[in-house]
């Protein structure tokens, strides 16, 4: 029973020992295979244990307290349905990533800076999900940040990476401080840091509001909510690609776990307005994130920004769940929460897949800049195929998994008219519009990502030399692609799997889905709405192949290769293709002015001169300019002023002491 948790804790322990091994044998050639192999086995084992637990005795929450950590609290760990679900997410991601890294890791230039921290990172995430008291939680949380920071700093000779690492860790500890304050409120002056004690104590409305705000700051900064996202597009791409996949695909989910754990579990009944903030922030994050992604030409940064978008979607539907829960609409709340968790799972699949693909592109061409890529579909057939699947899934297109979860989110939004408060009635559909917008933009974004990178003609010599990557990487990507499809056509299974979580957090669940005819999903009632990924997939497959069959049966087979149409001119150079920037231009025209304060200036040459005309576009990261630069400026100002105190004469220092003494004595003299 409680041995399950102990067994699970062996996982992180083993990972940490692996980390030590990696530190010891970092430079050795075999170390790579050893470490990643071990990480794969351990993650798989943990996965198996969790599966076994869920199969044998679901609903039970074994716990264990070790005499470590905070003395009078001890290090408590607990495996309830929520942690079980996130354990699955973490270790599934961990296992696949390790599989990928078995191949990808060989290209690592500085393995001794990656191998020790990679397992530590995994261990940290596992521990966060298992922790059952504030201290262990924060310790693992910050340890996770620290390990990932070390991984970001792996290629530290690059100035940009160093900057990314610094900003990342500062933001991370900012988030930790916010969480610390939140837990401080929950624990109260007596300092009862165990989660069950916090559950028992119900904070007042003011305190609850403060905790919610602090959680948005703390978990939000780690997950990448606007405007706390600034570090994310810097740090995630800076790490080696498999680590980027972990950070973007898994670590952000751990942050979401933290948010759910505190806000849905520890905080008790939410106030009706608590949902509004989360909804609005989520919607804004989704749109801004994907707009930034669209403007990005660096493949990995584009993916990082799209992570921000998905986080926004998840938070929006969490906010929805909060609103429903607060208004005693458990079934709707369960629907929204299920949608959020489902999207968590899906995003961990396709974002890892896409980062793996980016890594494959990086290893085979050495390029991250899409403007120098193109035509890779001919060089990397398999990679491009799985990457395409990733793109379809993340663009929320049926019949893949991204659509299934977003469809659930929309279904949840459609329950909003039943909400009593006017504010929510109005806000929820508006947020729905934002989500729809972000979904459409996501499709645009990934048309760009795939089209510019893999389609068209090669834009640089590096692409000409590119060749398909190793089997390990391909296997990992194929596995994830398969997951994307399966979760897309059999969503019912996942939804039922999530029922125990919603039961424990909300007290209600979505109706059983597997019983439905043809495995279709019916959130409320069939007359109301239903979707059947399997059937849609089947129809498309059948009709497509039917069409193909008839065509090839009855129509001509003749096919001739020719040069592309160039308005009658000879074949233009590849540079004449549409570039990433030009592809994004229409959307930049539409949204840029308010999202980035984008300004286009055309410099025409003087009449008669032969110089080219120039079009210059300058865009700003508004959040950065509004929030971060002023703070940096203020600190700079203060340091400049205070720094004079280092250069006073001894007499002046004495004067300081003297004045301080006199002031204190005055205070005392005037003391009542």
């Amino acid at each position: 029973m409680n041995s399950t948790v102990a067994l699970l804790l062996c996982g992180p322990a083993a990972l940490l020992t692996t980390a030590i091994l990696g530190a010891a044998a970092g430079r050795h050639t075999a170390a790579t295979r050893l470490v990643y192999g071990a990480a794969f086995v351990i993650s798989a084992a943990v996965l198996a244990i969790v599966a076994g637990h869920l199969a044998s005795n679901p609903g039970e929450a074994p716990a264990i307290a070790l005499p470590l950590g905070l003395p009078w609290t001890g290090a408590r760990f607990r495996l309830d349905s929520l942690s079980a679900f996130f354990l699955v997410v973490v270790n599934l991601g961990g296992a696949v990533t390790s599989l990928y890294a078995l191949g990808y890791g060989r290209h690592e230039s500085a393995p001794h800076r990656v191998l020790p921290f990679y397992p530590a990172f995994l261990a940290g995430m596992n521990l966060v999900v298992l922790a059952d008291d504030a201290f262990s939680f924060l310790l693992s949380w910050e340890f996770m940040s620290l390990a990932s920071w070390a991984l970001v700093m792996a290629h530290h000779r690059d100035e940009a990476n160093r900057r990314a690492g610094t900003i990342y860790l500062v933001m991370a500890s900012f988030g930790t401080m916010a969480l610390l304050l939140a837990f401080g409120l929950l624990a109260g002056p007596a300092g009862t840091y165990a989660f069950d004690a916090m559950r028992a104590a119900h904070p007042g409305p003011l305190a609850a509001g403060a905790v919610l705000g602090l959680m948005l700051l703390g978990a939000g900064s780690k997950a990448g909510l606007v405007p706390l996202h600034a570090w994310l597009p810097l740090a995630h791409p800076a790490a080696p690609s498999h680590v980027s996949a972990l950070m973007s695909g898994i670590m952000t989910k751990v942050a979401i776990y933290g948010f759910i754990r505190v806000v849905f579990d520890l905080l008790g009944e939410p106030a009706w307005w608590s949902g509004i903030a989360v909804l609005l922030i989520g919607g804004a994050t989704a749109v801004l994130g994907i707009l930034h992604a669209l403007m990005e030409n660096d493949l990995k940064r584009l993916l990082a920004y799209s992570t921000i978008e998905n986080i926004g979607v998840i938070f929006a539907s969490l906010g929805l769940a909060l609103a429903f829960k607060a208004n005693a609409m458990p079934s709707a709340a369960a629907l929204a929460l299920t949608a959020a968790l489902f999207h968590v799972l899906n995003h961990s699949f396709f974002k890892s897949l896409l980062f793996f693909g980016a890594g494959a592109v990086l290893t085979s061409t050495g390029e991250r800049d899409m403007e120098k890529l193109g035509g890779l579909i001919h060089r990397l057939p398999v990679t491009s195929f799985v990457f395409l699947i990733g793109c379809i899934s993340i663009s929320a297109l049926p019949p893949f998994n991204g659509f299934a979860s977003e469809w659930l989110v929309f279904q949840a939004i459609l329950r909003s008219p039943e909400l009593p408060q006017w504010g929510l009635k109005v806000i929820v559909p508006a947020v729905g519009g934002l989500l729809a917008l972000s979904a459409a933009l996501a499709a645009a974004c990934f048309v760009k990502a795939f089209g510019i990178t893999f389609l068209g003609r090669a834009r640089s010599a590096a692409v000409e030399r590119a060749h398909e990557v190793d089997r390990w990487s391909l296997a990992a990507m194929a596995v994830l692609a398969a997951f994307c499809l399966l979760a897309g056509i059999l969503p019912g299974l996942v939804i039922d799997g999530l029922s125990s979580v919603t039961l424990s957090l909300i007290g209600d669940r979505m109706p059983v889905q597997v019983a439905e005819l043809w495995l279709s999903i019916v959130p409320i009632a069939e007359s109301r709405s239903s979707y059947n990924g399997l059937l849609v997939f089947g129809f498309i497959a059948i009709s497509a192949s039917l069409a193909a069959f008839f065509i090839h049966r009855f129509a001509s087979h003749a096919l001739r290769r020719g040069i592309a149409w160039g308005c009658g001119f000879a074949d233009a150079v590849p540079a004449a293709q549409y570039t990433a920037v030009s592809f994004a231009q229409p959307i930049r025209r539409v949204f840029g002015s308010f999202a980035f304060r984008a300004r286009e200036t055309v410099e025409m040459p003087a009449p008669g001169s032969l110089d080219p005309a120039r079009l210059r576009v300058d865009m700003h990261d508004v959040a950065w300019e509004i929030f971060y630069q002023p703070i940096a400026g203020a600190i700079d100002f203060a340091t400049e002023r205070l720094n004079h105190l280092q250069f006073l004469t001894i007499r002046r220092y004495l004067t300081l002491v003297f004045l301080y003494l006199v002031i204190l004595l005055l205070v005392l003299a005037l003391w009542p």
Partner: protein
Amino acid sequence: MSGFSFDAVAAILFIPAGAAAILAAFPNYRMTAIVNMIASLLTLLAALSLFVTDRPAPGQYLIVDDLNIVFIVLNTFVGFTTSVFSASYIAHELETGRLTAPNLRFYHAMYQIMMFGMNLAFVSNNIGLMWVAVELATLTTVLMVGIYRTHEALEAAWKYFILGSVGIALALFGTILVYMAAQPVVGEGTNAMVWSVLIEKAAHFDPALLSVAFIFLLLGYGTKVGLAPLHAWLPDAHAEGPTPISAVLSGLLLNVALYAVLRFKLLLAASPQAIGPGPLMVTMGLTSLIFAAFMLYRRRDIKRLFAYSSIEHMGIIVFAFGMGGPLANFAGLLHMVMHSLTKSAIFFAVGHIAQVKGTQRISEIRGLTESHPGLGWALVIGVVAIAGLPPLGIFMSEFLVVSSTFARHPWLAIPLVLGLLIAFGALLLRLTGLAFGEPRGGMAPVEASYVPMYSHLALVFAAGIYLPGPLVAWFQHVAGILG
């Protein structure tokens, strides 16, 4: 030594004193380092024996209670490790000719005298005696700071001396005032200065006198704790003296002064009408923390950087004790121990770094993890620890301080957190510059043992994960005493 059978207490006083005498007269200066080490080790053993031997009853001059035993053991331990580090450090200084043989003899003798002074300060039960001891320790460090005789060193020492002796005077006046407050109640004579007597009768003392006294004591000893705005001597003294001394200053001497402040805080807390020491200490703590946090940004000298971080942490500790209550006091004690270990470890690393790179200028040191992995990663771990990141000990204390403060006085927690974050940003910025990037500066391998450094870090790490039960009980008891 009034009325003990043997003892540990006598030992931890006489060993350093004797060693100092020997060292002063020691002909062969090469041996001095080893003698120094041995003496420190013996002192440490003696201090450890305090656990096993039954505790002597408090006499008129000496006392061993739960409060100071923490400090004594910590003091002697760091004293020993520092002496080990100092051996290799000083050898290198001798090669480079920055120090001469006579300097060396003087240095080691002074080192032991300083240890004597600090131990005496801890075990003294007599506020007068305590005062003498603290001043003895201070003055010896003044001499050591000036030992290089460079302009900067002299200037630092001079600054230290002037500010220090003003502090001396203020503290003494405070002590006299305490006596005068006690004398009508306790009666004339030595008894009116015996701490264990004072604390019992404190309730009946004249509150007004006590309040004035506490202000003078807080300023007097606070000067040595390095609280802003009394801190001015601290950064330069750390930066210009030999690194072992910097380690001892940050790791130990600050604690000595802090210990004195705590003793008198107890006295004041026992007298209800007197001003509450809490608000004063909280204010000074926050001031120091935030001030130091900002000062960290513009630092160019690596040792001065960490000196300011010491000010910052002293601020946190004083803040914690000012907050009071079991959690905050526990955190304060823990933080103090962790800070001593971590900061001295950092200074060990910095000492070696400055020696291999031949400079203390931050801008001229780059990519240590590439050029000297051993040192570089030690520095990384040290800074990570001092910045309060897990899984190292300071995280636990900061966790307790911040969370308990926010639960009790939210508005105090905000500046606290801001200060911590600002300081963290500065440290991380510098660390990134020092430890990462294209290596720059001397590439010569280090010929020094990493043992002291890494043993400290290992202890800090262990404490962050697991605090042994007895230690906890003991801390909790002391936290209880501190009220």
